[in-house]
Each structure stands twice: as C-alpha cells, then as structure tokens.
C-alpha cells in the first residue's frame, strides 16, 4: 500500500460519495476503486511497474491470463510515468519544461485538505467538501471511472462487478462476437 491507513480511510469515504453503492451497482468502494488508486500511486513499488497490463488475453474468455503479467517499461516510458506519479522533484531530467506536480502529491494534498474529519461528516457535508475542491474531485472521479470499468488486473472492478452492473462484457478476446451477435444481437 502506498497511502497511509489514515489517507486510505479518507480516500474510501470520498470514493463512496463520488460513486455511491446502491441497487444499480457496487459503487466505487465496492468495486475496489481505492485499491485501483493506491496501486497507481504505488506502481513503482512493483516489478514490473503496474502501469500496463499484458496482452493479448485475460483468460476470462479463453486464452492465457496474460493481463496479470505487466509490461516492462522502456527508458522513456519510465521517465514519463515517474514524472506523472512522483512529480519532477527538482530533478533536471524531469524539468525540461518546468516543474511537474505528481499524482502522489495531488492525492496527498487533496486528502489532507479534506482532512480526517471528512469521514465523520454527513453525506451532504461530504459532497459540499468535495465540491469545494473541484480539481481534486475531478481527478478522483476520473480515476474512479477507470477503477470501476477498467480491467480488474489494475486493482479495481473487483471480480468484474463494475462491468456486471452496467451490462458490459469486458475484454472478449479470443472469443470475440459471432457475426450473428454483431448484426442481430
């Protein structure tokens, strides 16, 4: 885990407001969005880094479970993703166009701004607190969408619950769809 237990508690409470659980679906927390975000922030604690799931198949529709083996990064890929996640940290090789604020810092600051008290607010007050941080909430929401509806290998969409809730088949190779399923579903 990259986030501290306290940060994860605030993140989880915020995720529950961004996409709440209900009859229509598991919500962000039920689908594992906090784990998706924590995995992204801590991608470089894994080897290979958890940036790109492998190919060509996940095993869910036949084939090998190759998504589980993440791609190795090339030198330029690693530079880009360290800049994106860790920020430029004053390193000249990352600041060729000026400083870059990383996702780790954006989350750390955003969660701190919500504060530990966020978890104890009532839902309306939590929503108001999120609306008061529009840039952070937009970042969180984008990641919630990815964690809900992206491949489970990235840490979210637990057991395909995000896809199941919306009637999406997910990755379908190597099965694909028959011609009849395409033209007369």
């Amino acid at each position, binding site marked *: 885990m990259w986030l501290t237990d306290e940060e994860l508690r605030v993140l989880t409470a915020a995720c529950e407001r961004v996409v709440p659980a209900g009859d229509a679906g598991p919500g962000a927390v039920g689908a594992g969005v906090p784990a998706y975000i924590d995995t992204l922030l801590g991608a470089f604690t894994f080897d290979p880094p958890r940036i790109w799931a492998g190919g060509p198949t996940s095993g869910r529709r036949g084939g090998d479970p190759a998504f589980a083996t993440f791609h190795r990064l090339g030198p330029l890929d690693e530079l880009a993703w360290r800049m994106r996640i860790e920020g430029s940290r004053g390193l000249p*090789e990352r600041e060729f166009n000026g400083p870059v604020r990383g996702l780790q810092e954006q989350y750390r600051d955003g969660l701190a701004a919500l504060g530990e008290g966020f978890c104890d607010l009532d839902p309306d007050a939590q929503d108001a607190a999120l609306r008061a941080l529009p840039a952070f909430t937009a970042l969180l929401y984008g990641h919630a969408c990815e964690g809900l509806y992206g491949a489970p290998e990235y840490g979210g969409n637990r057991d395909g619950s995000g896809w199941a809730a919306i009637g999406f088949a997910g990755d379908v190779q190597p099965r694909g769809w028959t011609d009849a399923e395409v033209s007369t579903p």
Partner: protein
Amino acid sequence: MTVDAVIVGSGPGGATAADVLSAAGWTVAIVEKGRNHLLDPDDLTRPGADYSNDEVKFHTRHFLGPDPLVEPRTFRTSEEDGDRTFVGEVNSVPSTVGGGGTHADGKVPRFRPDDFRLRSVLGPQPDADVEDWPIDYEELEPYYAEVERMVGVAGLDGANPFAAPRSTPFPMAPGAPMFGALRSVEAAERLGYHPYPAPTAANSVPYDGRPACNNCGFCSFFGCPIHAKGDPVAMLRRTMATGRAELLSESFVSRIRIEGRRATGVDVTGPDGRERFVAARHVIVAAGAIETPRLLLLSGLDHPLIGRYYMAHFQTITAGGMPFRTWAERGRAVTHVHDDMIVGDERSREAAAAAGLPWIRGGLVEHSGAAMPIMEAKHYPWGAAHPGLMADSPIRKRLWAMIMQGEDLPYFHNRVDLDPTVKDARGFPVARVTYRPGRHELVASEHFGPRLAAILQEMGAEWTAVTTSPGRGNAESPESVPESRHNVGTTRMGTDPATSVVDPTGRVHSLDNVVVADSSVFVTSAGYGPTLTLVALAARAAHVLAGTAPQP
C-alpha cells in the same frame, strides 16, 4: 555500413516504402521513435502479443505513445494567441512500431478523381490556396490497387454509386454489418442518401497469414490482439523476412545530415540516450504530417512552405439517443459510411451561395456508436446519479452517431513549426500546431449537421445533438485543439519549387535523395481518411526510386 535507404517512421507510409524497397533488393534501416509492441521481439517476422482489449492501457495510459509528458506538442489557433495556448497532446497518432496504422479502426477509402483537381473542377475559394494535385487519380490508381492487396481491404464492389473507378476488385468481401448501422443505413436510404459498406482494413476471412476479425469491438485507438487489422504488420513482416532490413525502435531521428544537394544519413538518438549516425544513400521521411515538417526544420531546411497548409478534418459529430440498444460494442467500430456530403447536391450548393462561398464540401460520414465504458463514465457527473446513468447508459447502449470527416481547405496560416521554448525529453524543440477552421469548414458543418441529425431522427432518435471537433469555443480552451488524427498537408507536393516543398514523386525539391512518404505531401485534404492515399503515394514514391512497377 551505408544502407540503401534509411526510413524515418514505421507507420503505414514508412512500412510501405520499406516493403517495396526491400522487395526490390534494397537494404533498409527503419528508424522508429516509439516502442515495438507490434512484432514479436524475438522474431520480427512474427506478430507480437502485446495488444489487448484494455481501455485503461490504450485510452488513458498512452500505451501506444506518444506520452505528452515526455513528447508534448503545443498549440494555438493563430499567431495572435501568442506563443501557445496549450501544451500536451495535439492530434497525436501513435508513436510506436506500426505508427497510426495500429490504432486506426481501418477505414481505408480511396479518394475520388475530383479530389485531385479541386481547383479545376470547383474553382478557387477566398482565403484558401486550393490547388490541383500534380498527379491525378488515374496515375495513382494502380498503386491504390497494389496497396489494397498489401494491406488487405474488405469492401463491396459497386456498392457506392459515387466510387472512383477500380481496376481490380476488393481483395475481400465486407465483414459483418453492425446492428446499429443496419438501422441507420435504412434511415439514410429513405432520405435519399447512398450508404455502403466501409472499405475496411480488417480481414473478413483469413488473409495473408492473418485471421479473420472476430468482431471484439476494441478497434478505434486499440491495437488488434489477433492481428486481423491491416495495420502495417503485413508490410513490416515481409520487410523483415527479406533479411535486408533493420528495425531500430525507441530511436529518434533528430537531424538529416545534408551536404549540398544530398543527404548523407541521419542522426539517431537510441533508447540509451546515445547518438549515432546512420549513413544512407537515400532518406525516406515518413513521420507523419506533424513530425515530418518538424524534422525538416530541425535539419535546417528553410523552404518557406515547410509546415504550411496543415489540415486535419473539421469533424461534425451528430449524436442521437435511440429507444433501442444499438450494440456499438460489437463489431468493427464502423461498418457503413456515405459519400453524399462530399459529392454535394442542390441543397448544399444553395447553402454555399447563401453564405457567399463559391462551393462547400463536407466529408465522409461514418455511421457509428460509442462502445467504451470508461469514456462513457467520464461524460457523466460524479455523485448519486452515476450508477443509474451507467446502467441506463444513454451513451454506450443507446447512442448512434453520424460523424462527418469534413474537408479542411488549405490555409497558409494553418501550420506546423518549431515551438520557440518547449522541448521533448530528449531536448529537441517540439512541433507547434497553429490551426483554426476557416469559413468554408464552418459553413459546411452548419449546413450538413442538421441533415445528419435528420437521418438519426428518421432512425428513431428521441433526441439529437450536433457538436464539432475541434469545438467552437474560445481559443484558450483545450477544445480548440483538433482530435481528428487526420493530419495532412505540411510539405505540399507540386511541380513548382516556389509553391511546393516536394515534387510529384515526393522528393524534396532542394535535395536529390530525400523523399517524403506520408500524408504531409497532400495538396488538399479531401473528405476521406488519409491512410490509403498516403500508402498509395508511399508505394509510388518507392517504386519510382527502385525503378519497379506496382503489382496489382
């Protein structure tokens, strides 16, 4: 060692040139700045296994590159905006082995004869520099026939009443028609239009050692996991199998070295960051219509038209909400298109006259839906409404769209040049795009948008909406950046060195052995996707160099 040709870029243009030249016995070095995810790294004559049905990897995490943090571009709508209004991704096609061919959903129409002689057929336009191409359709036709076979194009002969004449049948019949398209085709026909199965570089039967497409639906912006798509995999595999080719991936060409009228080779920065020189008898530049002028400028070429007349297709996107599920997630992304908005009719001629323009042209109209759930989710607001919206899914499950690839006219002020300060991670100035639609594009969009909406209403739409890409907001908005991925026209082709950068074979006028083999050479943008035409031009340029003839 000096190779016969060094080829800058491994996309459709470069791969085609490599295939033709290596078949003719030339030794070639293909230099690609992106990574190799297309071919098996242990045997470059075999397809790789890196592509997958993974929206996170391909849509949000830049798997095919370029990553805008390390290879940004900059943008402004005009010089009056200042140096730039945006830094990041500007109409990028993939930076990877296979280039733009890897992510495209493979619509590969030919242009029509009129597209090569717009000035003669329709006449000039105010503000734009509309000219005839120095070659005509008849000259290019044998190369169209050859590359349709090389790429593997599925299509239906005779289905498009406006189609250009063909010397050969399509190599394959069309694949399975999508459910939503069958409904929109009926609606369009009832309104007098002429939709037809889109000529598509996705196998409908096993072809050239690759399987038939199995309709997985992960097509636009994805690499094909089973290599059923006619991306440059076929040309690159053949090239590597000759034993006369070397593929240098993660290798950036920063300069063409020039002595007098001749290039001697290129400077290449490899994955380890070290620079080497690749000596070559010929240099083929196929880096795309943004990176190609960037390289020519980085190399010190100073023709005043390098980078000028950048065109991108001003897209009109008309969406309709259907009372039934459209099943856009199954099939080849787009299976039907129509040409009526390119050809025009009495109504469009009246619209042009009413706007004080001599003529307007729209573009190819693609019948398609929206398939991907992360993309859909990001269109909805956060909060309690999200789960219900995603389950009900007005976008993914029930939307159908008419997307028009509106023809951009060539304007002197729309251009690519070097940004004065922004650099890539390797330290080189990045490309800056200056672009805004002209009055022709706006008038055409305003005329055709409601007509496209009428097709969706005829199909049963409960609501329709018309948008454009780029959007029509203010210059400071990121929405002013085009997203068509159809970049053309920055090293214009012509016979007169004063009014063009390259000659009718793609050779740079001022140099004896440098050829541009991509969509940079386009004189006009036509209303069609550029891929097949740029591939045909690349094949022709390579045949001219090698002294060989096209094989239909």
